[in-house]
């Protein structure tokens, strides 16, 4: 350090000379120094700003792409729903119209019968009234005359009048009973007519409901087709919800698969005894994994064949007969695998018991300590678990399809968020770097302020530091 001193005995003066010399030098070099600092700033902060711009554009492009995909999938889904409703109406109409002539015939038949019954009711001759009046008059005349012959005649007339009245009354009752019977037989026909009316009303109500659904879907379709921001938000929210739910279900399913794997891994070593390992896993463990994976695959094909999921268009486009073959194949396959798993679960318990007994025996104890009842319960429980778990695993096919459908949007969203964060981070660092270099410029200007001010005084005009 001392070698830099002009006057080694006066270090203060030497330092002051150095400072003054550097000030003068930097005053004359102020423009290139400023340019240099600016270049540094541009090279670092500018690069970051470019990165921020690129990430922003990428995020925008991704957002736009995702929006389009969302709208397209939304439109496709609503189109599918509308088509479904139309097919329902078509089916209902075909069914109703196919049954309509029969229904009409039935209705006509019942109405004709009702009409006939009604007419029959009307055709019945009403009773002959006035018999009681005649009988009373004759009865009065009967005691007012002294002529025996006349009285005898009147007696006979009275007698026959009374009989006539009785006969008329009996006929009247008979006719009334007949009419009541006819009226009574009309009641079920009325009921049947009423039932038919209700049937027609319910069919019409179904068609009306389908029409209302179509109207609702059409409104949604119009909104989505118009690509309104609310519709995009709504679609995004729906898909995100679907993604989260399917993810949770899949996670639960994976836990089930893990339990299933552990249930059969040990007994599999009894069936596939080999020392070879692949990626650190024994062949028996891989075999157990393959069984679990096969159950999942069978589940996917099963639900594909039923028509619940639509992952493979080839299966969806198959004829009903071929799909039935796949369905039965998958069901039998699952039944076979679940039976295998149940037996493996029993074997597992036996192996565990044997190992326990062996360990006790090696430790010098008595092997017969297992509780038989508990052991049986465990075996039954494990066997049931081994049988049921494959079927539960097979059901994962449904959330799996949902997950695949929703994951595109979810991942695009996550990627966009990540890219946007990167953009903000790059912008922030660029801002800090720019600020740092600006401070550096100001510090430089402060350092050369004395020569600048002297230059101002000499020239008489303002000399800028930069």
């Amino acid at each position, binding site marked *: 350090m001392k070698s830099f001193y002009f006057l080694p005995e006066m270090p203060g003066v030497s330092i002051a000379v150095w400072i003054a010399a550097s000030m003068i030098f930097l005053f004359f070099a102020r423009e290139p120094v400023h340019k240099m600092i600016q270049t540094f700033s541009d090279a670092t902060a500018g690069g970051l700003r470019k990165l921020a711009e690129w990430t922003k554009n990428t995020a925008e492009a991704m957002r736009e792409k995702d929006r389009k995909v969302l709208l397209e999938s939304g439109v496709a889904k609503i189109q599918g729903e509308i088509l479904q409703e139309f097919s329902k109406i078509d089916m209902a109409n075909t069914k109703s119209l196919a049954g309509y002539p029969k229904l009409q015939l039935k209705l006509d038949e019942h109405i004709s019968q009702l009409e006939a019954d009604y007419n029959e009711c009307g055709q019945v001759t009403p009773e002959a009234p006035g018999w009681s009046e005649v009988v009373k008059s004759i009865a009065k005349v009967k005691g007012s005359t002294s002529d025996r012959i006349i009285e005898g005649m009147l007696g006979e007339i009275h007698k026959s009048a009374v009989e006539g009245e009785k006969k008329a009354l009996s006929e009247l009752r008979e006719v009334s009973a007949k009419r009541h019977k006819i009226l009574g037989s009309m009641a079920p026909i009325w009921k049947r007519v009423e039932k038919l009316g209700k049937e027609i009303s319910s069919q019409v109500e179904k068609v009306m409901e389908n029409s209302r659904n179509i109207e609702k879907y059409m409104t949604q379709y119009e909104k989505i087709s118009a690509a309104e921001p609310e519709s995009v938000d709504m679609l995004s929210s729906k898909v995100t919800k679907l993604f989260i739910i399917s993810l949770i279900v899949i996670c639960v399913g994976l836990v089930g698969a893990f339990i299933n794997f552990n249930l059969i891994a*040990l007994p599999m*070593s*009894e069936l596939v*005894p*080999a*020392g*070879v*390992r*692949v*990626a*650190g896993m*024994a062949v*028996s463990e891989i075999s157990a994994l393959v069984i679990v994976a096969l159950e999942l695959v069978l589940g996917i094909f099963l639900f594909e064949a039923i028509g619940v999921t639509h992952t493979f268009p080839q299966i969806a486009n198959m004829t009903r007969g071929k799909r039935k073959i796949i369905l039965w194949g998958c069901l039998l396959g699952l039944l076979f695998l679940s039976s295998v798993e149940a037996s493996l679960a029993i074997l597992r318990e036996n*192996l565990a018991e*044997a*190992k326990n007994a*062996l*360990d006790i*025996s*090696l*430790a*010098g104890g008595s092997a017969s300590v297992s509780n038989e009842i508990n052991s049986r319960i465990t075996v039954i429980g494990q066997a049931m678990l081994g049988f049921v778990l494959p079927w539960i695993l097979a059901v994962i096919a449904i959330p799996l399809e949902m997950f695949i459908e929703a994951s595109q949007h979810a991942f695009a969203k996550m990627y966009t968020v990540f890219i946007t964060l990167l953009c903000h981070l790059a912008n922030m660092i660029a801002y800090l770097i720019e600020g740092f270099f600006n401070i550096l410029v100001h510090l430089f200007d402060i350092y050369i302020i004395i020569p600048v001010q002297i230059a101002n005084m000499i020239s008489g005009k303002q000399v800028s530091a930069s």
Partner: protein
Amino acid sequence: MEKIIKHILLALSLTVVVSACTDSKQYETSFCALMDISGTYAGEKANVANIIKAGIVPEMIPGDSLFFVKIDSNSYAEENLVTKLTLDYRPTKANTQKLAIAKTLDKFGRGNARSRLTDISGALMLCSDYLKATKSGTQVMFVFSDMKEELPEGVVRNFAEDEFDGIDIAAMNVIKLTDDSANPEVYRKRIKNWNQRIVDSGAKSWNTLIDATKIQEFIYNVK
């Protein structure tokens, strides 16, 4: 023709993929237990047999091997190998094998085999040969002895530099002799010498396990 070539290429790629996935690492463990039958330690036979039965045998999994070697006056001989076992990959068969070796150990424990001198080095070299032959991923030796070597005249035991390469060695159940009780420094120096000799011969580790119940923990750590 083109189709055949395509098929062959596909088969070759599949073979390459499968063989690339196949793990070349050896996951099996080989154990070698050395039992001193000389002097006062001969009385420990039954106790040692029980320690091996309860501590080592239950820890063995299908594919693992066990060699049981006795330490006598001249231990570097085939007849010093009392029994050996490699467990079958089928758990049920492995259980049967474990039961069989337990019986052999019991029989040895009840026997009255005894030697005048103690050739620990020869037994260690014999064990090393057996363990290396297995090519197992983990190789462990358990020495049941008082660790006091007394070689017969004319017997030379020099370890090669890689004699115990990759082998974990543990001295178990080391009982103290009368001289040791009188001066613990003698015992400590003896153990230290063994440590030096064994580590210099390439052993992965040298341990002295006083508590037999720690054997499982030791196996777990070396695996």
